[in-house]
């Protein structure tokens, strides 16, 4: 495989819905550079446009102003170098778990043989601990299991960039922690680190996972602050729990989100 490329640049990106009735932009004037192999989280209250940013990066929506560059070239739709994991289980209900992963792999360029694809699917299902439920349909799996299949598919497809939109928010607390550590491990183990853009509203999750946290504001519809996390890796919950840096970061982030809330309430009143 050639040189991996995962550099993303957002230049004055603005997005507003075309339909009438929705006043004002959802995202306004966001400029940001994401380095190759960097793990960046977008965090903010609901309605701050964090999911919209991800949709723009995935190519499902086009910015109404500004542009997004991927390794210097403007994004024009979805692409093979980007994998996406949505908040709600994006599996196809008529395919078994394994077939879902296989279907994803089959869409990748570079024509793998049928046997390789199948072996690869099994390997990644194994990695997320689902080797024995490959033949089940999504409806027969719990929410957490479904999301693990989605992650297995995204990792099996081995894209340079991984875009994740609140992937664990619909999963119960215990499984969420497991999945977060799993994600870190898969990311760390890769031959070359993927660039990950991760959207969340969970402060702890953002700290555990990210190199950098971008705080979005619901009022200004733009970036409020960017915080380098700077905690050493590899990380996991038990190492992180009571360190001073973690607590300080956490307080700072909650403060940032909370002032936002106060402003919002004032505006509403």
């Amino acid at each position: 495989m050639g040189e991996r490329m995962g550099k993303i640049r957002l230049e004055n990106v603005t997005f507003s819905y075309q339909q009438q009735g929705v006043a004002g932009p959802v995202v306004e004037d966001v400029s940001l550079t994401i380095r190759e192999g960097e793990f960046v989280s977008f965090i903010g209250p609901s309605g701050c446009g964090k999911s919209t940013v991800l949709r723009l990066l995935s190519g499902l929506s086009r910015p109404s102003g500004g542009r997004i560059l991927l390794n210097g070239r403007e994004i024009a739709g979805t692409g093979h170098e980007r994998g996406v994991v949505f908040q709600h289980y994006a599996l196809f209900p008529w395919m078994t778990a394994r077939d879902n992963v296989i279907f994803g792999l089959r869409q990748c360029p570079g024509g793998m043989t049928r046997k390789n694809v199948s072996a690869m699917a099994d390997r990644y299902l194994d990695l997320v601990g689902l080797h024995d439920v490959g033949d089940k349909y999504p409806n027969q799996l719990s929410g957490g299991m479904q999301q693990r299949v989605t992650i297995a598919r995204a990792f099996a497809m081995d894209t340079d960039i991984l875009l994740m939109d609140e992937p664990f928010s619909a999963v119960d607390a215990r499984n969420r922690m497991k999945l977060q550590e799993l994600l870190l491990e898969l990311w760390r183990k890769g031959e070359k680190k993927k660039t990950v853009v991760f959207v969340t509203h969970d402060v702890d999750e953002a700290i555990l996972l990210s190199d950098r946290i971008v705080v979005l504001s619901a009022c200004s519809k733009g970036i409020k602050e960017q915080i380098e996390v700077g905690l050493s890796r590899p990380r996991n919950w038990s190492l992180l729990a009571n360190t001073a840096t973690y607590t300080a970061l956490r307080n700072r982030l909650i403060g940032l989100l909370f002032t936002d809330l106060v402003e919002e309430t004032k505006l509403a009143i």
Partner: protein
Amino acid sequence: MDNTARNIDIPRKEPQEQELQKDRSRQACAHLLNHANILFGIALLLMAVPGKRPVADIHTWHLAGFLLFVEALYGASVLCRACSEMKRRSATDLTAIVLAGIILWELTTSKLDLFERLIFPVPGKVIAVFIEEIPMFMKCLASSLQLLGAGFSLALVTAIPLALLIGWRKRLFAVVNPMTKVLGPIPPIVYIPYSIAIFPTFKCSSIFIIFIGAFWPIFINTLNGTFNIEPKIIDSARVLNVRERTLLFRIILPAILPAIISGATLGLVFSFILLTAAEMIGSSSGLGWYVKYFSDFADYPRVVAGIIFIGMVVTAITFFFEMIEKKLLRWRS
């Protein structure tokens, strides 16, 4: 308070158990003395009562045989261990309804002789004719299924891909959707005389009529299913970079399969109605033709037997269709 409650509770346990056993034996009794079995008894007794209409012995024996056959079927389904309580109960109800119908029929015709003898044959006679005509029925069935199969599958292979393509393109949908609202509701039966005039053979014209009847429900359901497909599914497919053909046939098609199948079921019912109607008008074979032909000769036992056979065929086709549906939609359970 607690103590008194306990004191009362303990001695009560035994009577409760006795009660339970009584319940069980009562249930066993209810199994034997249910409405189906009672009606079976009444039907047998009724046969011993002399009637006002003269009935050939052979027909009486046919009726008796039929009653025994129904009861045996019912007994087998009750004794079947695999059947759930629900299924057993509906087997009982179904048997009761069939037997009640036979009793009413027998009572009004052979016993009380209330109606015109020619038009309302006795049940024994119809049963005898039915058995006699089975080879003929099979011939008619083969001829009818040929037309039905050709017309219906033609509708499936044209309506589904066409509706997928049109439903997927917003602009095409905007043009075609109002058109379906005008063309769809035209009762296909009105095309019968015209299509007989247009096509060289009766076979062609009836296949065409069946095709029209099945086409619209399948087409309209597929069209609306495609147009209103959940955006989430399309997004999930888009981010996997699927090609358009893959998107249409491997994502949208299975996603809206439930809607397509319900359209196809409706289409099948329509096609069967049209098939028999077309056969009545212009055919010299088939189930519809059979009923029409013998009613022209005032051979009403054959007409009634034919109608009953058509009912059985429709039931079998619907059952077969439901099995396919279950297989195709097993991921939904």
